[in-house]
């Protein structure tokens, strides 16, 4: 029934807050290996879409099909378990834990040690703990902040906090990495470094869903782009086509320039 190249399909997903239609029957298709951009003006429903996808909100109607199975994500940890990891628009790290501990928390899902393992520290638990530490170190290397491993998350620079959040998300071994405005507040150099990081992640086989305001970044990085406006998808195509779409220009630039 489903195309094996498709990782995520959203079918007419709708979400209301009281009378406000935050999402109005949004459907989209993300293929494996895509760097899929989700753009739109403020309040267009991008983050709401993320929150529905990751189980933080429940959509009123519509559904998601992820990796060939219908997503029953009524809780965020279930979404993480099937392979959807996310970062947050306003960074949400465990501020009073060190960078490496933050990433180690990300390994929770893929490890098993229980209370008895913790108390008796049997061989299996010790091995697992060592593997968690090793993997966390690798991931900090991967995102390029390993020299800050033992600093508290809240003492990291803004850009490093973004990277740490990505490392923590990658620790859950996602198939889909959903980044909510990762470049927000970054300067040009940091944005460029982020672009390289996201490209690397994509090359290593993780599909990326990206919400972003930085149109230049999205157009340069993404393989496909969808545009939301007032909770509706108004366009979905390759970047070059999206840029030329008159509805997008109107929505994004307020119509005055078109």
């Amino acid at each position: 029934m489903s195309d094996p190249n498709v990782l995520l399909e959203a079918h007419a997903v709708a979400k209301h807050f009281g009378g406000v239609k935050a999402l109005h029957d949004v459907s989209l298709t993300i293929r494996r290996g895509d760097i899929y951009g989700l753009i739109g003006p403020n309040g267009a429903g991008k983050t709401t879409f993320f929150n529905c996808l990751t189980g933080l909100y429940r959509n009123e109607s519509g559904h998601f099909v992820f990796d060939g199975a219908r997503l029953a994500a009524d809780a965020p940890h279930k979404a993480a378990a099937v392979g959807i990891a996310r970062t947050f628009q306003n960074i949400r790290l465990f501020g009073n834990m060190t960078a490496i501990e933050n990433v180690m928390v990300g390994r929770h899902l893929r490890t098993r040690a229980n209370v008895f393992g913790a108390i008796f520290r049997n061989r299996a638990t010790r091995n697992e703990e060592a593997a968690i530490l090793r993997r966390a170190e690798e991931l900090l290397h991967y995102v390029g902040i390993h020299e800050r491993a033992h600093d508290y998350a809240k003492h990291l620079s803004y850009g490093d906090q973004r990277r740490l959040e990505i490392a923590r998300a990658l620790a859950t071994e996602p198939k889909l990495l959903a980044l909510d405005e990762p470049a927000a507040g970054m300067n040009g150099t940091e944005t460029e470094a982020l672009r390289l990081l996201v490209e690397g992640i994509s090359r290593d086989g993780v599909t990326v869903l990206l919400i972003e305001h930085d149109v230049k970044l999205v157009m340069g990085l993404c393989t496909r782009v969808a545009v939301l406006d007032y909770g509706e998808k108004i366009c979905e195509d390759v970047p070059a086509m999206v840029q030329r779409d008159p509805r997008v220009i109107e929505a994004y630039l307020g119509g005055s320039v078109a």
Partner: protein
Amino acid sequence: MNLRFGKSMPWLGVVLVAVVLLAVPFVAALGGQAWVRIANFAILYIFLALGLNIVVGYAGLLDLGYVAFYAVGAYTYALLASPHFGIHLPFWMILPIGAALACFFGVILGAPTLKLRGDYLAIVTLGFGEIIRIFMNNLNAPINVTNGAQGITLIDPIRFGDFSFAQTGHLFGFTISGPQKYYFLLVALAIVVIVINIRLQDSRVGRAWQAIREDEVAAKACGINTRNVKLLAFAMGASFGGIAGGVFAAMQGFVSPESFSLMESITILAMVVLGGMGHIPGVILGAVLLTALPEALRYGIEPLQRMIFGRMFLDPESLRMLVFGLALVLVMRFRPAGLWPSSQRRRELAEPAD
């Protein structure tokens, strides 16, 4: 262990602590067996406070009804080892039963309430603590289960074969009284709970608790089933409460609902908060201080008043609450992270998260 006694000679610290721990019951006995009992209670409270520390300090769940689990453990022991029902099971059977039962109640209470946060959870647990106490008070009719407010008496002491903890005995040429025997049992239990606390802190589960305390939404997004993990903290804390209750019942030989008042819950919580939430040496310090302080008052204030005023006009019990309150206010004002906080907790309170 977080207690550092000079890095160059770690064994010196351990030996020192061991010598002090060995000496305490004999030194205390010089002032009478009552002082040994006070030392015993201090250690029992260390045990309780470290159990609560898992719930409050690690997972950040405010539990104001912890004494309910203590009561469940105590009554389990009392009912299964006393003439009340004529059942006399050995302690090594009852203590696990008490722990399991307390754990069961922890889950029963936790499952519906752990969606609540902060204040709301505190109110529900507070109510639960009172419900258990009132149950114990009134469960003497139509069937007499708990013997109501009179409590249950003649509870069997802990006994290994012929070695009873209630009687004075001789060991290696020393004469060891009942309370002194309990002292060593309690120290052994306390060491076990300390090791468990330390090991939990540094584990997958411990990190998950800490993550939930830091940011619950982010913890969920990391794939942590927050409800189950919180329930686990609750159940573990409750089991420790149950074990402590069992030992309490055996040591006292008597239980009544009066021992499990709200005040008791608050005292245990105060030990955790006063000492330093989530920090094991801090919690131990809190438990020892808050057990020793009222006793010191009781023994010190009376003669002091008689000496100065020639008569008693403030009874130590009411003075105790006053000093308690004052101590808490002062600690919150000058050391909001506790007397001996973990470096982490100090950070949290020094720089409020934005």
